[in-house]
């Protein structure tokens, strides 16, 4: 076969190789750039890993340890949030390496004093929770509750004194969170006290419950601008 460009086909090999290498570099660059940009912009999905020291959104959420995304969502007042698991950073209060979960606000409303809440370590009977109260400059408020439920629990339910309930499905902690299943609950307006229980697959309540009054008290304290123990 004649090469109409009049050159030896073997002459093109270095050029082709060069193009392939360049193409591979472009693809690698795209992937690296897109990944870092996604982490930085908060566009993350369940299972994504935020590497230690990787920029977060906002940057105050950055940790010195790897995090794995367990859940993401958005609420009317708090805005977008992200639940992750990670190993504890060492402080005078806790050693490094404990299993932790935390919930952070990725675009916190103006005026809210807390960017995130969480806990580290094993909880009794695999069931434990903390809260993230959110308030805004315009006086709106919202209470988010996050926690761990025993492996196999299907849901977590908050029951108020007047019998009103809110129920959320648990999510798999997976290999990243050895503690068990996890949950995030957005407490509807109007509830101001209650008790948390976990439910198994057939709806039977578990043996441990958590008094949620501390969470509501905390929200009130944040709304009032602090109160004293």
């Amino acid at each position, binding site marked *: 076969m004649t090469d109409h460009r*009049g*050159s030896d086909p073997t*002459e093109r090999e270095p050029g082709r190789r*060069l*193009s392939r290498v*360049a*193409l591979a*570099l*472009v693809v*690698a*660059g795209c992937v*690296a*750039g*897109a*990944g*870092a*940009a996604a982490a*930085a912009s908060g566009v993350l999905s369940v299972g994504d890993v935020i590497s230690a*020291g990787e*920029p977060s959104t906002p*940057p*105050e*959420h*950055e940790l*010195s340890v790897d995090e794995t995304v367990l859940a993401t969502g958005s609420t009317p007042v708090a805005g977008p949030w992200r639940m992750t698991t990670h190993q504890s*950073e060492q*402080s*005078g*209060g*806790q*050693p490094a390496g*404990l299993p*932790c979960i*935390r919930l952070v606000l990725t675009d*916190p409303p103006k005026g*809210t*004093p*807390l*960017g*995130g*809440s*969480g*806990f*580290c*370590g*094993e*909880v*009794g009977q695999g069931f434990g929770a*903390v*809260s993230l109260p959110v308030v805004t400059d315009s006086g709106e408020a919202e209470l988010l509750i996050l*926690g761990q439920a025993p492996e196999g629990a299907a849901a977590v339910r908050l029951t108020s004194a007047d019998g009103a309930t809110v129920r959320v499905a648990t999510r798999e902690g997976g290999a990243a969170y050895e503690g068990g299943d996890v949950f995030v609950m957005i407490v509807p307006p109007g509830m101001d006290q209650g008790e948390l229980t976990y439910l198994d697959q057939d709806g039977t309540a578990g043996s441990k419950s958590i008094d949620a009054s*501390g*969470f509501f008290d*905390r929200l009130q*304290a*944040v709304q009032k*601008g*602090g*109160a004293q*123990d």
Partner: protein
Amino acid sequence: MVSMRVLALARRFAVLLVFVTTFLVAGHVVVPATAHYGSGACTSKYHDGINRGVACNRYAGFGNHYANWIDGCDRHSDGWRVRAWGNVVGAPAIPGDWDPNGNNEGCANDQLWGHLENHRICVEVAGCSGWQPHGWP
């Protein structure tokens, strides 16, 4: 002829190189200066000679700007709940959450916006420690 082709390839490669560099740099342009991390000061509440709870802070520093966490940790199996408080400059004191795992290893962790001034630990029945300055370098 050959040199023209080499020149064309070189030009194409240069363009691709610019793209690669742009993408690689793009992932880092939004990155603030590398953070430095550390733990600050702790304060404990003793009752009847027993350490009932401790509050410590951790930080990530970005230049002269700091992100703050306070850890509220139960230290004794007495049934009394424990939580930390944080004072951010220009804002009222904010309560952390009750340590959800009693005196097991691990604490409640709360992230405060703003510049943490001091923190303390409060224990049901026993009361609160004094306010502890953050202790950052």
